[in-house]
């Protein structure tokens, strides 16, 4: 299935959508990021979980009732940021970093331990019922639809729950079908859908009430290339056409590269980086790498000289080596010459460090970042 480029249809369908945009007067734009016009304000936000070690067995579970060894985990630790209307922000971090916990606080599921959230004028957990009307949420790990009933029945019930008029509902359904191709499985119960089919339906369900703000927790998890592409195109399209603000978490950095100009990197509950993806690359792309394959193994010893010069030499596989260097300090051509002089090279490749590597080093605490906002 070739994914055709997505264009949102003008005409009857798009009348069902509002542009989520309030045009500011030209001169009234406040440059400050903390402007009152920001859609999401988060300040000093923390969530601590108290867990306890469960004892095993019958006697253990009786003990559990009375004596508990509590341990407190700071899943999110004094996080702060603001997001403007129409932004598409990637929220990334290794497993257990606190991404889902943040999303759950922003969507009003969890009450923060401390700190402030203000979104679109609401405090999510306090004005939950009104607030959730203005957001759409997709958890890639778990469907928001009713398990046993046909997808279309779920949609109809959601229509009633969100008080969407029949006209808008029909227009939107047609529209989602045009982009996500969901028509074929509308009459299948959710439990019988494949992951990719389910995710499309979940996405459509989250947007049925045309919310100005969309939270996505790993929306592409477990999807094949085509499905991922579909979803990305869909997100790009709604962001472009309706200025829908999107905050998404993911482990797939292609999602980020294709969708988000801005990323936030979080680990151990703390924000490590908040800024443009391009800036992050620029800041860290001082590092280049040369990969080369040796003709035979006997020459490997000659590479020690490079290590002694303070260059990082890693063995990638049996005959392939990689040298990372700071291109400001080391001249690329000089280094290549040195390598060719020292060993017999069968193949050689110069590249920027892939973004995955950069992120990996950030997670590992090797790369040092200024948190720039």
């Amino acid at each position, binding site marked *: 299935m070739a994914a055709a480029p997505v264009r949102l249809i003008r005409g009857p369908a798009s009348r069902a959508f*509002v542009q989520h945009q309030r045009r500011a007067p030209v001169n009234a734009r406040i440059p400050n990021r903390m402007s009152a016009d920001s859609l999401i304000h988060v300040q000093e936000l923390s969530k601590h979980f108290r867990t306890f070690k469960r004892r095993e067995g019958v006697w253990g579970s009786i003990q559990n*009732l009375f004596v508990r060894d509590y341990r407190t985990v700071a899943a999110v630790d004094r996080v702060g940021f603001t997001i403007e209307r129409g932004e598409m922000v990637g929220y990334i971090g290794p497993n257990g970093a606190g991404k889902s916990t943040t999303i759950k606080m922003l969507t009003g599921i969890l009450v923060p331990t401390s700190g402030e959230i203000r979104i*679109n004028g609401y405090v999510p*957990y306090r004005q939950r019922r009104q607030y959730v*009307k203005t957001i759409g949420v997709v958890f890639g790990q*778990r469907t928001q639809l009713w398990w046993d009933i046909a997808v279309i029945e779920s949609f109809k*019930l959601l229509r009633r729950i969100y008080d969407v008029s029949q006209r808008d509902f029909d227009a939107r359904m047609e529209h989602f079908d045009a982009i996500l191709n969901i028509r074929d499985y509308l009459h299948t119960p959710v439990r019988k859908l494949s992951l990719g089919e389910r995710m499309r339906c979940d996405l459509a369900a989250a947007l049925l009430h045309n919310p100005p703000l969309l939270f996505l927790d790993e929306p592409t998890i477990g999807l094949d290339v085509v499905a991922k592409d579909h979803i990305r195109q869909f997100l790009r399209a709604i962001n472009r056409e309706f200025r829908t603000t999107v905050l998404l978490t993911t482990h797939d950095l292609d999602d980020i590269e294709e969708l988000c100009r801005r990323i936030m990197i979080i680990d151990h509950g703390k924000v490590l980086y908040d800024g443009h993806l391009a800036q992050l690359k620029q800041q860290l792309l001082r590092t280049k790498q040369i990969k080369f394959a040796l003709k035979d193994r006997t020459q490997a010893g000659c590479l020690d000289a490079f290590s002694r010069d303070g260059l990082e030499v890693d063995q990638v596989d049996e005959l392939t080596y990689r040298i990372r260097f700071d291109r400001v300090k080391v001249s690329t051509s000089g280094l290549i010459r040195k390598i060719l002089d020292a060993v017999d090279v069968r193949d050689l490749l110069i590249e920027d460090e892939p973004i995955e590597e950069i992120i990996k080093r950030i997670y590992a605490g090797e790369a040092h970042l200024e948190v720039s906002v």
Partner: protein
Amino acid sequence: MPTLTPISEKSGIAGLLDAGERHFGLFFDYFSQYAKVRVSYRGDFFISLATSFAATIFALSFVVVLFQKVPQLAGWRFEEVLFLYGFSLIPYGIFNIVSLNLYDFGNNYIIEGKFDRVLLRPISSLFQVLFETFRIESLQEVATGVFCMWWATRHLGLAWTPAKVAMLFFFGLCAGIIYISVFLILSTVSFWFEDRIGVHPPVWNVMAFGRYPLSIYSGMVQFFLCWIIPFGLASFYPSVRMLGRTISPQYAPLVPVVAVVFLTIAISLWNFGTRHYSSTGT
């Protein structure tokens, strides 16, 4: 249509009525959703109906057998006990119809994290948990109860005046609310203690105590069944009133009060508990 400006909700009483009306309408949507699923598994429905009806008859036959051995129970005749038994089946049935999710609340919603989804919808979380599924088979308990009462009054020579019918509806509803509230209160425990088994089963067994005249129990048990877990209060005093027996004290007027108090406690605990909900790690 949602816009970027906060949606102006009516406040105060008007807002409450508005929300009430919306939820009332949604009740039918939820119910028809459930009905569609049940209709598509018709065979399953009839088997379940038959087994639950058999269970009701089996429990009822205990009363019949009992009265073949003894002529009276603490001054109560067979027909009178049958009336009380029948009346207690009404709140029991009402409770069973909506209890399915409550009974498994800790497992299903808290530990499995299904409550996330509930909190993401712009309607009451309690409404969703209660009405997301039903056990419509339990209507047979209500029907059996009504039948027992009808049979008993015929043999007792009591007439069903409109006032009595109204009383039956009113007290039946109050008792139903008491039953549901008690289990709601128990369910909210799951917000703080995530234990799989829960505290429902022992209390569930207490319901059977409400089917017999309170006067057969000792003072302590009576107190417990009236004021701690008021299943006894809910069915005994209204039955006494409807049967026209003179007994003191007459606590029937307190039944709606207790219903309101328990429901208020249950809803408050629920709302308080949702703030403690910690979701799951995945």
